[in-house]
């Protein structure tokens, strides 16, 4: 892991296959640049706007009406929700510090809301020399003051979601089938093959799980500790899980503004 100038480690603990770590991000020039370049580029998609016209034109051949769809697709949609920025921040951070690559670029890859659809917030490859593992993760953004925050608990909480990524084979295999077409014929194809081979050969265990919690409170190991310990009891090698808490130097509500370089939306 390379070091960077806009972070400092608050706590770090490992327990069997699980580790948890608290990092404070420091408000400085490098951080500004990280937010406005790395994070921002994962959030906005300039191509999208021009594509929707083609999409609608061919819809005409189906005999279905275009009107409502056009309204939705034509709407300006600079991302302004803090949690979405949180996800982009998590992706950019993992790419920056954990050698994770993402086979696609932008926010438009948001999954659909259909409840039954399997998914993970983050899908990528953790590259360690020749070794490539499938990287899956969940991101939670919380401005709550309570420790640990509510987003860590319950059925939609981080622990539960990561547990199901570790154990629900169907979800991962479905993700892989989808990922396949994203990696075909581009620089990610080799990573895909290595990661899938490793995954299958390891009896579906060789995956790197990440749980990223974005906070605007003071660092506190209790944010992660209990979940980390609980997961350590059930997670089997070679699956690994890293829980990261990123403590922001600004409020979560002001994230969208920060990512756009301070320009008000």
């Amino acid at each position, binding site marked *: 892991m390379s070091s960077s100038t806009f972070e400092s480690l608050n706590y770090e603990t490992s327990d069997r296959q699980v580790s948890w770590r608290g990092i404070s991000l420091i408000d400085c020039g490098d951080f500004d640049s990280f937010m406005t370049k790395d994070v921002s580029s994962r959030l906005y998609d300039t191509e999208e706007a021009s594509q929707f016209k083609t999409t609608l034109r061919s819809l005409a051949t189906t005999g279905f009406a275009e009107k409502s769809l056009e309204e939705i697709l034509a709407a300006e949609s600079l991302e302004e929700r803090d949690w979405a920025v949180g996800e982009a921040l998590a992706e950019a951070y993992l790419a920056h510090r954990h050698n994770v690559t993402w086979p696609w670029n932008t926010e438009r890859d948001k999954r*659909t809301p259909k409840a039954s659809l399997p998914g993970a917030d983050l899908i990528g490859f953790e590259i360690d020399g020749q070794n490539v593992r499938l990287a899956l993760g969940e991101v939670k953004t919380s401005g709550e003051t309570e420790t640990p925050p509510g987003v860590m608990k319950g059925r939609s909480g981080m622990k539960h979601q990561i547990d199901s990524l570790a154990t629900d084979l169907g979800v991962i295999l479905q993700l892989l089938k989808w990922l396949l077409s994203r990696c075909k014929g581009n620089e990610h194809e080799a990573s895909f093959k290595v990661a899938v081979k490793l995954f299958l*050969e390891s009896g579906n265990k060789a995956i790197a799980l990440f749980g990223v919690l974005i906070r605007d409170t003071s660092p506190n190991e209790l944010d992660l500790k209990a979940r980390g310990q609980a997961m350590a009891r059930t997670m089997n090698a070679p699956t690994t899980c890293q829980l990261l808490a990123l403590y922001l130097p600004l409020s979560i509500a002001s994230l969208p503004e920060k990512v756009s370089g301070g320009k008000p939306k």
Partner: protein
Amino acid sequence: MSHWLLETLGDTRAEALRQASHAQVHRELFDRAFSEDASVVRRAGEALEMTVLDFLIEGVIDDESRLITLRSCAADAFRLFRVLPPKGSDLDWSIFKLRVSALGVLGEMGADAARMLRESPWPELPLQSELWGERTWATIVDIWLRLIRKQGWSDRDKVLERVAALRDSQMQFEKGYLEAQQPAYAKTSALELIVLYHLAKAAEILANYITDGVVDGRNFQIRQLLEAQFDRAIAVCQSARMVELEPLTRLLAACSLQMAENSIWTVTRAVNSRVTKFVQSLVERGRGDRAIFDVLPPQRRTLAEKGLLGSSRRAVVVSLPTSSGKTLIAQFRILQALNQFDNERGWVAYLAPTRTLVNQITRQLRRDFTPLKIVVEQVSPALEVDTIESRLLHETDRDQVFRVLVTTPEKLDLMLRQGLERESGRPLTLVVVDEAHNIQSVRRGLKLELLLATINNECQHAQFLLLTPFISNAREVARWLGGTTSSDDISFALDWQPNDRVIGIVQAEKGKPLNRRSFDYELRLETIHTSRNTLVVDEMLALPKNNDIAGTYNQVSDLSTLAAVTAQRLQERGPIIVMHTRPEWVWTLADKFRIDANKQHHLSEKLSLVQQFLELELGANFPLNDLLSYGVGVHHAGLSDDVRALMEWLFEESELRFLVATTTIAQGVNFPVTGVVMASHQYPYGQDMPPEDFWNIAGRAGRVGQGSLGIVALVAENTAKANTLRKFINRQSGELNSALIALADEASDLLSDLTGIVYKYPEWSTFVQYLAHTYQQMGAPASFADEIEQVLRGTFGFDKLRTQNSQLANKLLQGIHSYTDYLQRPGQPLKLVDSTGFSLQSIRTVLSAASAERINSESWNSESLFLHDNQVLQGMMGVLLRVPELRENLKVATGGPDPDGNRLALIVKDWVNGVSLSEIASRYFTKDGDDATKSMTNCGKNLFGKLTQTASWGLGALLSITGGNLSEDEFNALRNLPSRVYYGVNDDSAIALRLLGVPRAAATPLAIALGNVSERSLTEVRETLKTLDETKWIQALGQAEGRIYRQVWRVLEGLE
């Protein structure tokens, strides 16, 4: 080819398939829920699906080895996924089923996928949901499942209906659905809807195409139309994270193109208008479940990819496994051949080896071709042509002439040699040979082979289509018939099969003691590995005992009882054919099913119709009558054609639980069964059933449209037998050989002098007749011996003999030279060879014997020949008993050590004069201690199987040989005498009705009531019969008889 994912998967694939087979066998046989390792099955399935997707993304169209790998991965994924138990919500489960079915289609298992969806349909989906997203998903999943299932027209209609309904309600629900979502989700949801709309449109396009062969009345480019929708859908998928929809869309894209390729419209496009009309009729057939939308993969390969329809190849050998739809392939070829020679009113000969098959094929062709105004006729296998058939063959009315003639090879041979093609003035354009592997049958093969050789030489326009189960030298056979350049074979490897099958051996296992002397038992089914990809499980499968059939281990120790207990258990899944070697054993076996559990207390109309018919024909005590009320039918050579046809009908109509038959049914079965139980694997005279016949019957087990799993169980009374059966099951059908090889080998002592060969080896008659016929055709040249040598070198048999045993071939050539000298002797009655079907030697024998008996032109009198006090027939029959070609079949009626023809003449007279079967049985076929059933069976076997056919042939030949001084009119007046013997009636009009399928007892009274039908065309009389109402039948036959015979005739004619 391999794929990195398959390498990674390694042995897991085989292990998962093993688990899936296990699950399937246990579910089908024991109704047991899935209890295998789901995770290994799922994991392997997903990896295979991923491999399929990888190939699809790359594109495999032009790479055969990739395509084969893709298909095998898709098929295995289908095999794995289909056994998994339901999981998730109704919609999730249905989406899963859709993926599975699409993989099935891609793996050439579309018929299995459709069957799976019919047998276990997907759950009710929220098609009316207020949530537009859910409603759209539900609709798309539902319509694509329907497109794959294709249950008649209703599925297709529902697809169109649902797409229209979705469009209609879009305005009402879509806006609200999108606006209720957060903006970023809304955009993704909008994109998802767009993908789904494209899928809806694609479904609509495909639904229209499969029934109409065209989209919007003008667009035939189905591929481009579908691709346009799917390309857009996939492009849109890429602008959002549609984890489930994107891979599904890719699968559906490939699946829809495959379905379009499988469409009967695609396969037959742009051949000719007659073919188009035929396809239309198949698609529209009843608008019910019998409509045909798709062709099976072997049919697609044959018709489209191998270009059978577009080709000008003279000879084609289609070598496909049983149940892969060879008849449909033949139908298309027939239409093409008819079209080619439409102006000349060219005709097609369809050859089938048995009477039963001739009847079945005629019914099917007539049903399918009548709407196209193509006249299909059959002629009887009797080896003579009576005036009724003669008129049929020489019909001149352009609309009434037959275009397809169904018959046996022997009959066609006789008709052609008697100048059928020349006299009809119409060219024979195609010869279809069904079950062409019979060419190697020792008894009949050479006839077929030489017939084809003769046609090849003498019928200028004739083309050939040979249909066989899989043989390894199809090309060689095609080359032989077609010459070296314009011939081809179309073979389809063994890896395609219409459904899954288990082949197993059943043995009884001793259980706990029941008392001091007897033991309990259970049956054990051991599944056997075969070369045909049948399912196998590692452990023995237990079949429970049946106390009603056998209470103890001792009682189950014989083959019949073992077979009965096995069949009793297996019939719980559907109708079973149970086979044993000989008719007597068939009766005993059938009787074992007469237990309370099988007793049907309310007989269906169909069953009681057949019972009433049997009562009229064979008496109320005939055991089949009672067996029917237990759902048991019987089928063997001791029963008349009519009774056998009725048994087949009842079985096909699912009225029978068991059809107990002799093993010979394996050659003639053309209908599906759920299972086959074999008490024996041998034919009546102790020879093993050939592999082609075994696989023919095994291939019927659980075929397309029937239960998913076909079971073939062979029973063994001990370990030694089980070992024999294991070997039997795994014999390979190899190269098609010529019967000439075996014949030459057997007769090697006489080969160098063919003059007297028929006396010792009557099978050689065919060969020497061929020599005589060819000699005449060539104009009796002095150099015949050299010329025929050249001709023979080009035949299949001689060519094979030369390469396999040159010494024998040389001997045979010597024999041919000496026979040529014999032919060239002055005054040889060569013409009679073609008109009688006898060898020259036999004709000479007849001539001298007839002269000794004083049989000449004067002896023939149609009024008196069959009268009881007339002795002429006795003399005639005495002559026939000396003819080598007839001797064997007449043996049973020779009557004592010094044959005089008396007994045979008596039997023939009774038969012609309408004496009932039971009376004939008791007069001539009852030995001491025989019960009525035994003598009836013995009588039927001989009368139907041998005497009537052989005696009528002999009588016809005798007429030709001794009637030389008759005028043409006189001769014609006598021409129907042999047919009277064949059909067992004593009236020309009754003969016409018999040819039209009217049962013997009804033919004469009905003929009287209808007036002189023998003067009218058969087509016309058939129409009259079809429309004749019940009162006319009743007037002719009486109240009960009229009604019953009318119904039975309609059944036999395929009208019911």
